[in-house]
């Protein structure tokens, strides 16, 4: 395990170009009197796969939502490609090259897989005749094949198994042609084989230049995939480093691994 | 000084009547997530049930009061069982269906009785001097009965098992199922209680303004305003809301223009929906 982790660590240095893709600076998010995220700062480098780890309720989703613009941060800044994007609406984030998946899937249950994906290719213009006669279908099919939904193109989302839904979420995000992809709990409920094939997909996409932040509360599968990890608990950063360092870290073990099955 | 006392009295009586209508409406919303437009039909039914008792059967007005409680209660339960229950998961269809029931009820009585307004005898004659103001005994009785009903509903919901079941259903349908609350019985009870309250209001409006085929819509709309103001599903909220709307209405009608009945209330409600969708006493978490 440790050996494995350090290997991925060295891999990181070869992949990452060292340029900062996303920088989160002193992010704070409060709901009423509750502080969900407290003074959180970190950065993500280009072509890196960053693991974002923490127990349930640690503030991972809130941080995600603040980066993506679903929530407006109470204070702090989010810089994406050297541009201040703090609090922009999610659709603007997507236009700037960010994309996300949802842990609780948000499929469009009324249409098939291809049409779900091709929505990401529609232009944000009101008056358009495109789509009347097909159009973006081929590209969408290409993306579906890419994520392994080639056999399920014309199924509706409710016909897809759990793993298929995750792939659909990914396909929709990838179809927006993002530079940075935020992935929310991709491995929840997956078998080892499925985790492996999904990890390979992430690696391939990274090779092509995509940057990833992968959230999970469970370290299973994640440690083999990521280059670097950030661990938060109660909304604050408690550790940062290579996967091998993270598993050794005492604070992490105490606050987080204690009750978990690792 | 006397004028203000008169105004306050009027506002109190009107508010109590509005509260009767609003409580039933909000209870149905709270427990079954239904906007029951047929609630207006229960008002009309109550008015006419009393009217027929007195006019056609020659009974005393007190038998009329009983009829105005029982008939609309049965009517409301039937509306739920026959029309709403099969489609209750679909909010839009429920609204359309209950509007149709309201329209059908209105036109039914219009067909039979025509468009003129029928007179109901007063509950009591004479008037009482309350020091600063003299009030008709009839109005005092309306006020007292309205409040007895309101308090009775409060006690029913807070002190009886079936009432607690209704309360719990409105907070968490699944939680209620887990502790063994029977949803079907609770919902029917709620419709019955709501129907009785609305029928009572119908009788009271009938006593003070006459019974007519279109007497249901206006109080129903004002109940909307009250319920939005007080927060959907909250009984306490709707009593408070009724007093705000009732006072506002009394003031505008008396001081500005009697044709403004309802307009101000509805206007205020529009603003509230936009500014504070959950109302002043609403519980968050419905939609956000």
């Amino acid at each position, binding site marked *: 395990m440790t050996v494995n982790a350090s290997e991925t660590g060295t891999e990181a240095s070869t992949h990452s170009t060292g340029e900062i893709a996303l920088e989160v600076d002193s992010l704070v998010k409060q709901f009423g009197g509750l502080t969900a995220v407290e003074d959180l700062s970190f950065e993500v480098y280009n072509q890196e796969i960053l693991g974002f780890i923490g127990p349930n309720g640690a503030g991972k989703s809130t941080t995600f939502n603040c980066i993506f613009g679903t929530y407006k941060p109470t204070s702090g800044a989010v810089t994406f490609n050297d541009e201040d994007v703090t609090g922009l609406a999610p659709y603007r984030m997507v236009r700037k090259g960010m994309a996300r998946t949802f842990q609780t899937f948000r499929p469009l249950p009324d249409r098939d897989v291809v049409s779900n994906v091709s929505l990401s290719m529609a232009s944000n213009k009101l008056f358009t005749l495109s789509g009347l006669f097909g159009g973006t279908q081929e590209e969408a099919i290409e993306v579906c094949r890419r994520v392994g939904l080639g056999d399920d193109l014309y199924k509706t989302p409710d016909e897809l198994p759990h793993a298929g839904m995750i792939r659909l979420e990914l396909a929709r995000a990838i179809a927006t042609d993002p530079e940075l992809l935020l992935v929310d709990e991709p491995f929840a409920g997956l078998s080892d084989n499925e985790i492996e094939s999904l990890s390979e997909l992430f690696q391939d996409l990274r090779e092509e230049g995509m940057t990833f932040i992968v959230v999970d509360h469970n370290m299973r599968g994640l440690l083999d995939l990521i280059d670097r990890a950030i661990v938060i608990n109660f909304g604050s950063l408690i550790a940062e480093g290579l996967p091998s360092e993270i598993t050794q870290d005492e604070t992490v073990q105490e606050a987080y691994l204690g009750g978990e099955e690792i | 000084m006397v004028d203000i006392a008169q105004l306050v009295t009027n506002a109190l009586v009107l508010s109590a009547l509005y509260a009767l209508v609003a409580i039933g409406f909000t209870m149905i919303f709270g427990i079954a997530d239904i906007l029951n437009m047929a609630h207006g039909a229960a008002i009309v039914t109550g008015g006419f049930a009393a009217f027929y008792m007195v006019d056609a059967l020659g009974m005393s007005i007190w038998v009329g009061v009983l009829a105005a409680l029982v008939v609309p209660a049965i009517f409301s339960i039937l509306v739920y069982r026959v029309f709403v229950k099969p489609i209750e998961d679909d909010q839009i269809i429920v609204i359309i269906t209950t509007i149709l029931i309201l329209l059908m009820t209105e036109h039914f009585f219009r067909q039979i009785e025509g468009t003129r307004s029928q007179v109901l005898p007063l509950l009591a004659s004479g008037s009482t001097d309350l020091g600063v103001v003299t009030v008709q005994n009839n109005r005092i009785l309306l006020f007292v009965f309205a409040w007895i009903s309101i308090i009775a509903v409060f006690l029913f919901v807070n002190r009886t098992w079936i009432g607690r079941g209704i309360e719990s259903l409105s*907070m*968490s349908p699944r939680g209620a199922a887990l502790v063994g609350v029977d949803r079907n019985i609770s919902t029917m009870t709620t419709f019955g209680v709501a129907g009785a309250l609305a029928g009572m209001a119908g009788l009271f409006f009938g006593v003070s303004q006459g019974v007519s085929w279109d007497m249901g819509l206006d109080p129903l709309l004002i109940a909307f305003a009250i319920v939005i103001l007080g927060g959907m599903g909250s009984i306490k909220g709707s009593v408070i809301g009724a007093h705000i709307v009732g006072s506002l209405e009394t003031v505008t009608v008396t001081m500005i223009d009697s044709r403004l009945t309802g307009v101000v209330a509805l206007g205020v409600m529009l603003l509230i929906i936009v500014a504070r969708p959950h109302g002043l006493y609403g519980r968050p978490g419905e939609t956000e």
Partner: protein
Amino acid sequence: MSTDSSERMTEGAETILSASDLSVSYGKVTALKDVDITVQKGEIVSLIGPNGAGKTTFADTSMGFLDYEGSITYRGEEVADQRQSNLVSEGLIYCTEDRDLFPFMTVEENLQMGAFRSRGSYEESLDFVYDLFPRLEERKTQEAHTMSGGEQQMLAIGRALMGDPEMLIIDEPTLGLAPVIVQDISEAFDQIVEEGVTILLTEQNVIFALDHADKIYLLENGSIVKSGVAEEMQGDDYIRETYLGG
């Protein structure tokens, strides 16, 4: 603990909950497929498995929340043929993963509601619950929605106990809780077991399940892959590798 459990199992050979060839689907997705599970009176049975394996679906189905094919009976009677309120009166109590508390009722009112169909003594049950979770007594006038996740979990279990359960279904009692609170819940759990209540426990936390259960069913993708007595299952290679991290 282990002697306790063997005593309990010989004592009651009566089947209390039994599913055979049970299948449940949501639209076109099958959530449970041909599941057979038997719970004897007095037993502690645990359903384990990853997220989305169908554990909650099984619990929901037992309580009559879902339509199903095949058969599932409580005390010999088909669940689908009974009103839910009836199941509750018969002592089948379900403590859900989402807790489903009454958010705007106080702690005590929530507990009162728990006794809605109970035939047992209200005061006794209340004392037992307050003994079990002293923290609930401290906060009895607080509204449920203002409490922390762990306290809500305690309240949910407490409310379930107020119903004087013959059989208790507990869905993921430790999910998302801090280790300290998991410890509290675990201790309370042991006390409930001593009361002789039959329990069906669904858990992702395999260690917790192995600690408390007599019998284990492993559910994956809606089917039972393994089942057996807890001690056996603890030694099982597959379970060790997959769920206990080797």
